[in-house]
């Protein structure tokens, strides 16, 4: 025996793998993502035409939360940060997070990474509802009014109820559900177009502005509602992540044999994701691709286990929309490109890449 002898080769493959290697890293990734999300969101508040550094943002937030004396020379900056930038950025984050969560759930339940809540026709239906309300009030109801929001939400929920009702009554497969969604998307887009055709100049503009999807008129009320839905949905969905894993990975039959009440879980979770999507659409208009791309990025970073994928998608979706909106209001400043347009520019190439690089195994 000499000292130069190499260790036996066979030891490597036969050695037991290190204790839970893949499971250890994911909480760390999740925490890192959370810190990153907070930092980037904070930084996005500072971006814009009016000068406001990180220190100003911090001071403004401190004043708003804990109170204190507002110096006169800081009043304008304070107002911009607290009344304009912060609600805008937070609404973008909440909307992105909610859409991304809805996307993860839809993709898992329908076992298809190419679907999003919009695939079921939720978004075009909401857009039609909003356009109808705008038209009937002669354009006097803007995109922020409760009438428009209520009409968009009502239409989206009614359409999803019809789709899901049909699906459960006829025991439809996921593929049929998607085809139904495509048909409804076409129908509602045509109906919205018909409304635009009969609308006068002002109303038309109001409708078009709404269909772009933006967080331009964000107020604290919008942030509260959308944020509350997104934050409430996360723990609720996490509670069902075990069942979601069984359905997504093993399929309906095997999930049933693993003790999951597949039908009830599916209907319940689809309702949650439709409500999330409908709430966002009714407050911010039509913002596509986040529900598709947010989960995809999250899956690349942390894997497909829903216990980690759900919270991480919350972060990626939120960040994606915050960044897209910041880009939209800075590249052509002082004009603002609606976030729905920016996100489509980012989302479309990612989506195409997703289709082209899809594993052959998934067919």
């Amino acid at each position, binding site marked *: 025996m000499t000292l130069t002898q190499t260790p036996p080769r066979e030891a490597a493959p036969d050695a037991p*793998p290190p204790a839970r290697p893949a499971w250890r890293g994911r909480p760390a990734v999740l925490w890192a993502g959370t810190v990153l999300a907070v930092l980037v969101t904070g930084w996005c508040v500072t971006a814009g035409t009016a000068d406001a550094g990180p220190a100003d943002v911090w001071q403004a937030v401190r004043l708003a939360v804990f109170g204190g004396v507002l110096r006169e020379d800081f009043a304008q900056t304070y107002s911009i940060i607290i009344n304009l930038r912060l609600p805008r950025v937070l609404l973008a984050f909440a909307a992105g997070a909610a859409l991304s969560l809805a996307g993860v759930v839809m993709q898992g339940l329908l076992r298809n990474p190419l679907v999003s809540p919009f695939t079921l026709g939720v978004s075009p239906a909401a857009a039609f509802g909003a356009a109808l309300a705008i038209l009937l009030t002669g354009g006097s109801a803007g995109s922020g009014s409760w009438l428009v929001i209520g009409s968009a939400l009502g239409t989206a929920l009614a359409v999803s109820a019809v789709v899901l009702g049909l699906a459960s009554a006829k025991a439809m497969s996921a593929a049929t559900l998607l085809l139904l969604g495509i048909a409804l998307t076409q129908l509602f887009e045509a109906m919205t177009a018909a409304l635009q055709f009969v609308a006068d100049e002002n109303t038309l503009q109001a409708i078009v502005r709404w269909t772009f999807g933006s967080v331009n008129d964000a107020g604290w009320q919008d942030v509260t509602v959308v944020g509350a839905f997104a934050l409430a949905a996360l723990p609720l969905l996490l509670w069902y992540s075990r069942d979601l894993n069984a359905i997504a990975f093993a399929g309906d039959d095997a999930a049933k*044999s*693993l*003790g*999951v009440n597949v039908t009830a879980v599916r209907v319940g979770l689809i309702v949650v994701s439709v409500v999330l999507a409908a709430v966002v659409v009714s407050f911010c208009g039509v913002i596509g691709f986040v529900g598709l791309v947010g989960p995809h990025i999250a899956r690349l970073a942390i*894997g*497909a286990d829903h216990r980690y994928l759900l919270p991480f998608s919350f972060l990626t979706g939120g960040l994606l929309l915050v960044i897209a909106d910041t880009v939209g209001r800075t590249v052509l400043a002082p004009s603002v490109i609606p976030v729905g347009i920016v996100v489509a520019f980012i989302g479309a190439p990612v989506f195409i890449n997703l289709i082209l690089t899809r594993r052959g195994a*998934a067919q």
Partner: protein
Amino acid sequence: MSLDVASVRFGYRRTPVLEGVDLRVAEGGFCALLGPNGSGKSTLTKIIARVLTPAAGSVSFHGRDLLAAPRREHARVVAYVPQSGPAPFEQTVREAVLLGRTPHIGLRPTRRDRDIVAAAIDRLGLGALGDRPMSQLSGGQAQRVLIARALAQEPRVLLLDEPTSALDLRYQIETLQIVRSVTREEGVTALIAIHDLNHAAHFCDQAVLLDGGRVVADGPPAEAFDAAVLSRVYGLDVRVTRGEQGVEVRPSALEAA
């Protein structure tokens, strides 16, 4: 002390699939469900697995009604191995086997869950593949992962739906050996839907032949295999030979050559 299926009926819309099936598998027994395509053997395993709900009839184990129990409790007694198919999302072998703990765990798997998963992976000879993505496995390996998942479920009854159809000869034999050893060593009752009559004859204690949704033969393979019955059921002339190696079925057409 047995798995009992009594007068189970099932149909899709107006097409009856099972027309009153009765069978009993002794605890720790290894039973083969045989029959031509469309005879209802797959449907029967799915009914026992609670994937499908029968129109009538009962399934019980140790006298306990399996169809009335809550799903989660049923899943702690009965595990089901489907045919392996592609999954839409990436997952490692270990994560896939961990799904078998679904009826046992809350939100987080415990140390014990991970130990059981590791043991199931080792038992199927997948030890070196624990961190391998499922999409990189061969068909035979993927099928063994599904069996490992079922074992991680710690079932008393193991159902397998044609687990060997996609496997090459070596993995067919290995799979059947593993299932047989599980029945022998842990007293698990196994029911396997399978096409190969000779494999069934060699590995199983009991053979149940289904035809048109009814049981036409039931018993130890050597007794249950009857040339006339098999020829009629499969619509093909077969010869059954009984020798020291056990019973063997061959199509007559092959012998003439």
